[in-house]
């Protein structure tokens, strides 16, 4: 009898312990036109950029940003608009090969964060960037702003095209910089699922 009670209590404790995990937070990218992913190529003759608001993914963490965090973001490269239809087509078909590698993906975790004020955090990320079928380990920095119930994520970094086996067109009048700057600015909301 005593044994039985003991087990029951033990079970209860276990359940309570594991239940704490329910406090985990999951945010998903809010589908809004305000999301911005911008690719910038700076070249002596002609700067150009590609823009999309088609980013998706999640940010998961427990208690604070860095605890057991997981994050995953993907950008639909088919939707990147450089302004000229034919150039988009070239980019898709010849360089990014989006029929095979449609998404640019970053997955990783928040390794540390720094609270600037109640609404603003600096975060350091570590993870894998997958573009054009090539995966590379990268470290990024970003900012998280609390806006009401939502998160506003901002990050700037750059990628080298050669790191991802993306050929730089030789024959062209539009020069592309080997180093592409990326600017991300998008919104996340709590996942209600």
């Amino acid at each position, binding site marked *: 009898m005593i044994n039985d009670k003991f087990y029951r209590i033990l*079970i209860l404790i276990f359940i309570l312990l594991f239940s704490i995990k329910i406090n985990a937070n999951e945010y998903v990218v809010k589908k809004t036109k305000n999301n911005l992913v911008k690719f910038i190529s700076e070249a002596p003759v002609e700067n150009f950029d590609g823009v999309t608001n088609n980013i*998706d993914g999640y940010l998961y963490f427990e208690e604070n940003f860095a605890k057991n965090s997981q994050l995953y973001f993907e950008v639909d490269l088919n939707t990147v608009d450089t302004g*000229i239809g034919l150039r988009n087509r*070239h980019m898709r078909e010849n360089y990014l090969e989006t029929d095979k590698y449609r998404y640019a993906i970053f997955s990783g975790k928040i390794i540390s964060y720094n609270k600037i004020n109640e609404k603003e955090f600096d975060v350091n990320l570590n993870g894998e960037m997958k573009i054009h079928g090539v995966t590379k380990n990268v470290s990024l920095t970003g900012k998280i702003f609390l806006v009401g119930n939502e998160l506003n994520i901002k990050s700037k970094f750059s990628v080298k095209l050669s790191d991802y086996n993306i050929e730089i067109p030789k024959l*062209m009048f539009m020069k592309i910089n080997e180093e592409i700057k990326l600017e991300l600015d998008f919104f996340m909301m709590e996942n209600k699922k």
Partner: protein
Amino acid sequence: MKNNFRFINNLFVVIFFYSVVNLHSQPQWKREETNDNIPLMLFHSTHVINMPTTETLQKGDLEFEVSHRFVPTIQNGIKNMFGFDGPANIKLGLSYGITDNLLLGLNRTNVNDNYELFIKHRFIEVEDSDLPFVIGVKTSVALNSEVLGKKTFASENFQYYLTIIFNTMYEKKIALGFVPSLLINSYLPGINKNYSIIFGTYLQYYLSPSFSLATEWSPTFYGIRNKYNSLSFGFELETGGHFFKIILTNNQNLNLSQFLGGADIPSTFDNWRIGFNITRLLKL
């Protein structure tokens, strides 16, 4: 023994709860699968050499074209630089993408000072891996504002055409087009109103993303035309914002209203004329 059994039973409950709780604390996000949202693009350019493809411009894009056809044939050789000494027929063209599927354009040639206002609309798109096809229509009103012995706005100076464009592609390499066309006032020197029906055909072979070869054969099926059917060959170089096309043709005309009317010399080997098209795409 009984207690032991209970223990195992309870252990299962714990494991069950644990797994439920743990499952719940995994990210729940899932990708929403969507179509690729890319329009079906078979040809690269809005026209092959002279004949239209179903391609339009992305909304807000502007296409500027300068094209030449050198009137002397290559048979005189170096004497007039294979035609480069001129005279030359010149076309200036401007097209604008009103929507992704609707194009508005104005062309001007120095042949009879022709103005050609046209719209092109692509309206059927079937994305099939074996036989993708796109159907479009291009229609135009053109004015030959300076025809010898006629007033500028004389009704005989106006030309109208309607073309239905069928495009398909094989293995992403060979693009084919069939363009049945009706041209009103096909033969300008004609005294009576006249018209002709032309079966435009073309083939473009993409050697690489930037290089392609093209040919056009546009026989007049019915009606009055200039003396011969038009045959053209071209080489196309494309850079993402530009097209350069070098052309051999027996038809010296550029605007479609004039081109569809036929050629003045036969398409035999020594009758080729050299021409080129240069196109620049801009964002307005």
